C-alpha cells in the first residue's frame, strides 16, 4: 500500500471540500472493504484519503411518511436487519443480507456499495493497464470474460456493475442525495450509473468532488424482490441478479420494473421483461416468459453464454417471490 495523508472531517461539507476535481489522488474512505483492498493491490494509489468515520450525519435509517431515508454511511448489516425495511423493501434487505460475510456487512456502507469499483480481474490486476486506468483497451472483450457483461453492445469496457443494492433500489424508484462543492442535488439512481469507457472514468456519474450523503426511497406498497444466482453462499458476488417491483392490481401486474445486476456495465433495466409481465397475473408461465424477454437481447461474449440462461431464471424467480407465490425451486 502506498503511503497517504489521512483526513477525518466531521461534516459532509468539510469532506467534499477536501476532495479534488480529478479522480485518483484523493479517495473517500467509508467502510474500507473495497478501498483498502484496492490500495493493497496498488490498483488505487491515493496520496490523500478522506475518512468519513467522523461524519455522524451520514448514519441512520429514517422511515418517514412519504419516503425512507437511508444515510450513505448506514452499515449493510443495519440495512439487512432493519425490521421496517424488511417489511417494506425485502428486495433491498435480502440483497444487503447476502453481501460478503458478517465482517463485510458490519463494515461496508450503503454509499460504498453504490460507489465501489468493479471486480473485473484485469482491472484488479496491478500490472494490467486497462482502459479504466490509463490503457487503450479492454482486455476482457476478447479475453477471459466468463463473469463479464452479456448486455454490452458497443461498450468499450465490459465490466459488470458490482452493486447488488443498486438494482433493488432502482426498481424501487430510489434517488441519491449528492453533496457537491456547490451544495446538494438529487440524482435518480436509475441515472446514477454509467458504463465507463475511457481512462479514469468511474462506474457512476458523480464528479470527483461529489459524495453520496443519503438515499431516499419513496414509500409505497410495491411488491418487490431480488433473486441472486450464486456459486457460493457467502463471500461471493452473484453470477446474475434480478430485482423486480410492481403494483398489484385486479388486472394483474401494473407498472413493473425489472432491473438486472451483474450482466452489464450498469444495472440493466429490462424493459422487455416489464412489458411482458404487465397486465399479467404472475405465474410460472408468465414469469418465465418475462425472464425470456429479459434475456432476449443479450449478446454474450466468448465465455459467458451461460449467463443468458441465468437471466431467465433470476427474473422468473424474483417475480414469483415478489408475488408471494410458492417458490417452485424450494420444497
Amino acid at each position, binding site marked *: 500500500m502506498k503511503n497517504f495523508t489521512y483526513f477525518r472531517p466531521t461534516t459532509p461539507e468539510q469532506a467534499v471540500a477536501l476532495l479534488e476535481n480529478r479522480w485518483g489522488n484523493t479517495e473517500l474512505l467509508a467502510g474500507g472493504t473495497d478501498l483498502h483492498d484496492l490500495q493493497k493491490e496498488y490498483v488505487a494509489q491515493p496520496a490523500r484519503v478522506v475518512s468519513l468515520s467522523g461524519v455522524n450525519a451520514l448514519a441512520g435509517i429514517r422511515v418517514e411518511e412519504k419516503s425512507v431515508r437511508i444515510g450513505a454511511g448506514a452499515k449493510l448489516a443495519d440495512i439487512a436487519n432493519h425490521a421496517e425495511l424488511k417489511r417494506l423493501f425485502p428486495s433491498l434487505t435480502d440483497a444487503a443480507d447476502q453481501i460478503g460475510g458478517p465482517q463485510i456487512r458490519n463494515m461496508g456502507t450503503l454509499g460504498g456499495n453504490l460507489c465501489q469499483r468493479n471486480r473485473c*480481474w484485469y482491472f484488479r490486476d496491478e500490472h494490467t493497464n486497462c482502459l479504466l486506468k490509463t490503457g487503450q483497451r479492454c*482486455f476482457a472483450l476478447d479475453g477471459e470474460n466468463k463473469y463479464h457483461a452479456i448486455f454490452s453492445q458497443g461498450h468499450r469496457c465490459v465490466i459488470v456493475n458490482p452493486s447488488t443494492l443498486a438494482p433493488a433500489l432502482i426498481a424501487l424508484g430510489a434517488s441519491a442525495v449528492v453533496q457537491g462543492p456547490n451544495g446538494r442535488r438529487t440524482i435518480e439512481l436509475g441515472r446514477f450509473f454509467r458504463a465507463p469507457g475511457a481512462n479514469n472514468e468511474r462506474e457512476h456519474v458523480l464528479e470527483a468532488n461529489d459524495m453520496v450523503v443519503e438515499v431516499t426511497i419513496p414509500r409505497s406498497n410495491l411488491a418487490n424482490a431480488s433473486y441472486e444466482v450464486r456459486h*457460493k453462499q*457467502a463471500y*461471493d458476488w452473484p453470477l446474475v441478479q434480478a430485482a423486480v417491483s410492481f403494483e398489484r392490481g385486479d388486472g394483474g401486474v401494473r407498472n413493473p420494473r425489472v432491473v438486472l445486476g451483474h450482466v452489464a456495465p450498469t444495472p440493466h433495466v429490462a424493459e422487455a421483461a416489464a412489458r411482458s409481465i404487465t397486465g399479467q397475473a404472475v405465474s410460472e408461465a408468465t414469469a418465465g416468459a418475462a425472464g425470456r424477454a429479459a434475456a432476449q437481447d443479450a449478446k454474450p461474449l466468448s465465455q459467458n453464454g*451461460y449467463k443468458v440462461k441465468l437471466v431467465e431464471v433470476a427474473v422468473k424467480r424474483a417475480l414469483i417471490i415478489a408475488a408471494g407465490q410458492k417458490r417452485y*425451486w424450494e420444497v
Partner: protein
Amino acid sequence: MAQVFQVIGTRPIRHDGLDKVTGRAQYGADIQLSGMLHGRVLRSSHAHARIKSIDASAALKVPGVEAVATAADLPESGDRIAHLGEGAVNLRHLSSNCLARGKVHYKGQAVAALAATNPHIAEEALALIKVDYEPLPPVMDVREAMKDSAPKLHADVFTEEMGQLKKDKPSNVAKHFQFKLGDVHKGFAQAAVTVEREFHTATVHQGYIEPHNATAMFNPDGNVTIWCSTQGAFTVRAQVSELLQIPVSRIKVVPLEIGGGFGGKIRVYLEPVAAVLSKKTGKPVKILMDRAAVFEGTGPTPGSYIRVKLGADKTGKLVAGEAYLAYEAGAFPGSPIGPGAMCIFACYDIPNVLIDGFDVCVNKPATAAYRAPGATNAAFASETVVDEICRQLKIDPLEFRLKNGAKEGTRRADGPIYPRIGMIETVEAAKKHPHYVAPLAPGSSPFPRGRGVASGFWFNIGLKSSVTASVNNDGTVSLVEGSTDIGGTRVSVAMQLAEALGIRAEDVRPVVADTDSVGYTDVTGGSRVTYATGWAAYEAAQDIKWQMLEKAAQLWKTDLDNVVYDKGVIRAKDDPAKKITFKELAEKIQHKGGIVVGRATVDPPWPGGAFATHIVDVEVDPDTGKVSILRYTAVQDCGKAIHPSYVEGQIQGGAVQGIGWALNEEYAYNAKGEMTNASFLDYRMPTSLDLPMIDAVIVEVPDPKHPYGVRGVGEVPIVPPPAAIANAIYAAVGVRMNELPMSPGRVVKALAAKK
C-alpha cells in the same frame, strides 16, 4: 486377536488446544526479534521471460533499505539431484524457484528481495527495483506444451523416455514412463463392455489459511537460525544447506505452529532468501507472503489431461485397463505423475493394465504436493469410467467394487503386491451404511437429485522419526518429537506413548522441537506421523519400561526377570506385596537410582495403504447449474483410530477440500499466462455455508506391522469426492461431467448440450 486399549480410541483434549483457542500459539508472523528487518520479495510480472538485467540501485538508495538479494547471491547449484524429503529435487531448479536465475517461468516467480527497517519501506523500495525482461511466449496447457511446436521452458530439460534421457532436443516433457501388467490387448478382447473417456482437471491450490513465512538470523560465526512454518524442519535444514552450501550442523530450524500445509509447506521459498538477506545485513530478517504471493508464487497441484479406458466381462469382472495421464509440472519438472499413475487403478484387481504417465512443464508455478498428490485427478477419471461401466452392466456400483476390489495378494500395476488392506471393508461398510440403504436425501428443492459413489487409494509412507521421552519426578513424561503437528498429532503420538506405559494421555507433555533438539525426523506428510512418529513413541516407551524395570529390580534387590510391567504398575513376580506405580517410581528415582530417559528412532516399513469409499447425494438446479450437496458420507479404513476425533477431522477436511476441487476451485489464466483470480474472493473456495456436515465413518482393519495397527488417515479422503460428485450429477441429470471444476456455468452448458 483384537488388542484391548486404555488410552487408544479415547478422545482426550489435545495438548496444544488451549494455546490455539486462546490465540497464544506462536506462528511465524508472531516472531519479533530485536533489530529485525523486514523483507519483501519482488515477483515476476511475466509468465515467461528472459531476465536481461536487474538494477536495484534506486531501491538501495531509499533510507532504511539495507540489502537486496538476487539469484547472484545464491551459489550456483549445478545439476545435482538431492533427496530432500519430498522426492528427488534438481537443486538448480529449486534455487531458481527461490530467486530466478536468467529466466522466469511463471508469473509470481521470485526475482529479487530486499530487507528494510520496516515493511512499508521495504514495499515502497521494492517497486524501485528495475527488472528488464525480454518476454517470451508462454505455454499454459499440458497438451499444448507437449507439442513439438510449443515454446520450450528450459534449454536443459530433456525427455526421460522410459528411463533413457533423450538428449537430442530440449522438451517440455520431462518424463514419460509406463506401468504394465499382463496384456491389455488380450484383456480388452475378453471385454463385453469397454468405456473410454477423456478428462481435464484445473490447477488448484491447497489453500492453507496461514501464508508462508520465514525469519532468519545469520550469525557472524556462520551459524544460522530459521523460524518458519513448515511441514518438516529437517527438510528445510537440508534444502537451505544445499541451496546456500552451508553444512547442516550450522543450521537450526525452529518450526513454529503451522496454519495448514496439506503438502504445500515442504519445499522452501522464503527461508534461503531470508538467510541470504540476514547474512548480508548481519540482522535478523523476516519475510511474510501475502495471499496473492501464496497463490502465484507457491506450488499448487497440477492441472491434468487424463484418458481412461476400462473393460469388463459380462459378469462385471474388470479384464483390462488403460490410462494416459499428462500432468502439469508447472515451471520445473516434478509433478506428482508417479503417484497419479500408481493410484489410478489401485482400488481394483485388474489383470491387464497399461498406464502411460507424462510429466510436463508449463508456465505455471512449480507444482507441490497436495494431499494424496496426483491421486484425486486420477480417481476423478477412473472412478467416473467405473460408474459408466456399472450403469451399462446394470450392476450396483458397490457390488461392482466388492467383485473387483483390491485385497491382500492383489498386484498393483506398478509392481507391489498388497499386504493386508481394507478396500473391501470400506465398500462393505458403505453398503450397510444408513446413507446407502436410505432413499435419496431430501433436497431443498423439487429439482433432480442423484447419488454417486467413488473409491480412492493412497499409499501412505513410513520414513524416519525420532523421539526422546524424559520421565519427570511427578510421574509425567516429556515427549520431544520432530514432527510438525498439523492435524492433532501431538496428541495421537502422545497417546501411543501413554498406552504403552499405562499412563494417561494428559500425563504426557509433547513438544515439537527444533532440529538441534531432536533426532532426525522426516516431514509431516504421506499420512505418516501417527504411524511412524507414533511407532517411535511406542519404542521409546519400551525403552522407558526396561529402564523402570531395572530401577525397580534394584530397589527391591531382585533379578530383572523377577519384575514385570503391567499397565503402569511394576510388580515382583515372587511377592504380591511388592508393587509400585509408574508415578511412585518416577518420584523415587529422582532421589535414588537415576533419571530415566527413553529414546527411539524408527524407519518403519511402508504401511499397507489407505482406502476410502464415499457416498454423496446432490441436487442439481437445472436452470442455474448449481450443484448442492445434500448428504455426504466418507467411509475410510484407518487401521486403528488412535484419537477418533482427529481421524474424523482428517476425513472431513479431506472430503471438503475434494468437494471444493470438484465444484469450485481453479486457477483462471488469461492469454498472457497471468492468474486472474489470485485471491480467496475470486478463487471461490467453498465455505461452511456451501457444505453439509460430512459424516465420517471409521473402519478399522489394523495394519499388522504397526504395534497398534495404525495406517495413516490424512490424505485418502480427498481422493474420491470429485468422482463421487460427478457420478451423483449423472444420476441426477444424466450428464457426464468430464472437466473440473463442475461449476454452474459448465453444468448449464453440459445440460444445454444434452438437449
